[in-house]
């Protein structure tokens, strides 16, 4: 990889300042995507700003009816968190299926979401749980955060500081995992918020999206049968060497029904 200048600020404000003053900077969180990207010279930033030394960005806490996960919290910590396991087990389940154990020790929730890989797991959790993305400048609704392929609502200079999840009544994540990469060929998050059901999908489209037809059917009748007749439109879904758009559309329904069957 091309060399760069490395910065390790101790506060978000310092990182933000560096983003403004460096020629072509990039933030680095866990680096599980960015470092391989740099090795391939698909990106050649002049400066890397590591967020790993900012203590405020790490940790999981409860704030009333919400669970707040710091942006630099690694997947392993979310997967093993007693707090997450007892309040949003679907989120712990999701985090525990990302990559492999060593990757989960480095990769972070903020990094994963900022990167917005179409096959990443966390976007389904952010959208499905109706989370709020908290940045150093504002709060962004999870529904509005993932804009397109590797594209988010973040503005230049904006840094994710935390994700705030409302505690649902029930949540579950099912994933068809690519056997080599571990990425989601399709991932489905189903959430019973108490006021209705949310169904979010990752891996299948350019970015995470909700299946409103399933949400309406499940809000009226939470059963696999209720969504049996719902066909997800394959138009606009991802097609690659791993799976066609039609296959992905079909798998969304299969995974949704398996998730529903997991509720006791």
């Amino acid at each position, binding site marked *: 990889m091309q*060399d760069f200048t*490395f910065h*390790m600020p101790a506060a978000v404000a310092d990182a933000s300042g560096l983003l403004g003053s460096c020629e072509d900077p990039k933030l680095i969180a866990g*680096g599980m995507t960015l470092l391989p990207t740099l090795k391939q010279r698909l990106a050649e930033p002049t400066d890397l700003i590591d967020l790993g030394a900012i203590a405020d960005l790490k940790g999981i806490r409860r704030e009333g009816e919400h669970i707040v996960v710091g942006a630099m919290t690694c997947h392993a910590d979310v997967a093993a968190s007693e707090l997450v396991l007892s309040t949003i087990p679907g989120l712990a389940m999701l985090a525990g299926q990302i990559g492999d*154990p060593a*990757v989960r*020790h480095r990769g972070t929730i903020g990094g994963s979401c900022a990167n917005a890989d179409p096959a990443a797991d966390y976007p389904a959790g952010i959208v499905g749980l109706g989370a709020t993305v908290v940045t150093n400048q504002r709060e962004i609704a999870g529904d509005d955060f993932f804009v397109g392929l590797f594209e988010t609502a973040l503005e230049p200079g904006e840094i994710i500081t935390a994700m705030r999840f409302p505690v649902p009544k029930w949540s579950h994540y099912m994933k068809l995992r690519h056997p080599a990469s571990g990425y989601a060929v399709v991932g489905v998050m189903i959430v019973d918020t108490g006021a209705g059901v949310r169904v979010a999908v990752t891996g299948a489209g350019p970015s995470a999206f909700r299946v409103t037809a399933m949400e309406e059917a499940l809000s009226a009748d939470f059963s696999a049968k209720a969504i049996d007749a719902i066909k997800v439109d394959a138009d606009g879904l991802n097609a690659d060497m791993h799976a066609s758009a039609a296959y992905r559309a079909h798998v969304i329904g299969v995974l949704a029904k398996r998730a529903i069957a997991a509720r006791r």
Partner: protein
Amino acid sequence: MLTDVNMTINGREVSGKVEARTLLVEFIRDHLKLTGTHVGCDTTQCGCCVVHVDGRAVKSCTILALQARGTSVTTIEGLAKPDGSLHPMQEAFREHHGLQCGFCTPGMVMMGIDIARRHPNADEHTVRHELEGNICRCTGYQGIVEAIVDASRTMATAGEKV
């Protein structure tokens, strides 16, 4: 431009000057000449380069040396006692013949210890699942899995802390 880096490796304070792009594994192998940690794929997949950073298994090909500043790193060289007696995980790999060519072995042993710490008395299913980030092209994993299952019991019994 070279930057100062310092960390603790296998209990020893080390320091050096590195380019910002230097990977932790390059610092370990090329600067410190600790060549027990291997580089297989250099793409975060094979697990040959697994070391412990502050007690957790990470792939040292996908972390910069500068990101590990101030941390405590353990490599395969740091496991055996000064008198040469092996760590229980190393002993189990020997006992169960958990290797053939040996290239993946340092990463397997380091990951095995990480698995055993997180899953005391781990069963075969757990070990196979947890090994998904470590690739061996010789053994078919049978001996490796047996070794980690066995050592996870030994370590749990001994209240192992490395």
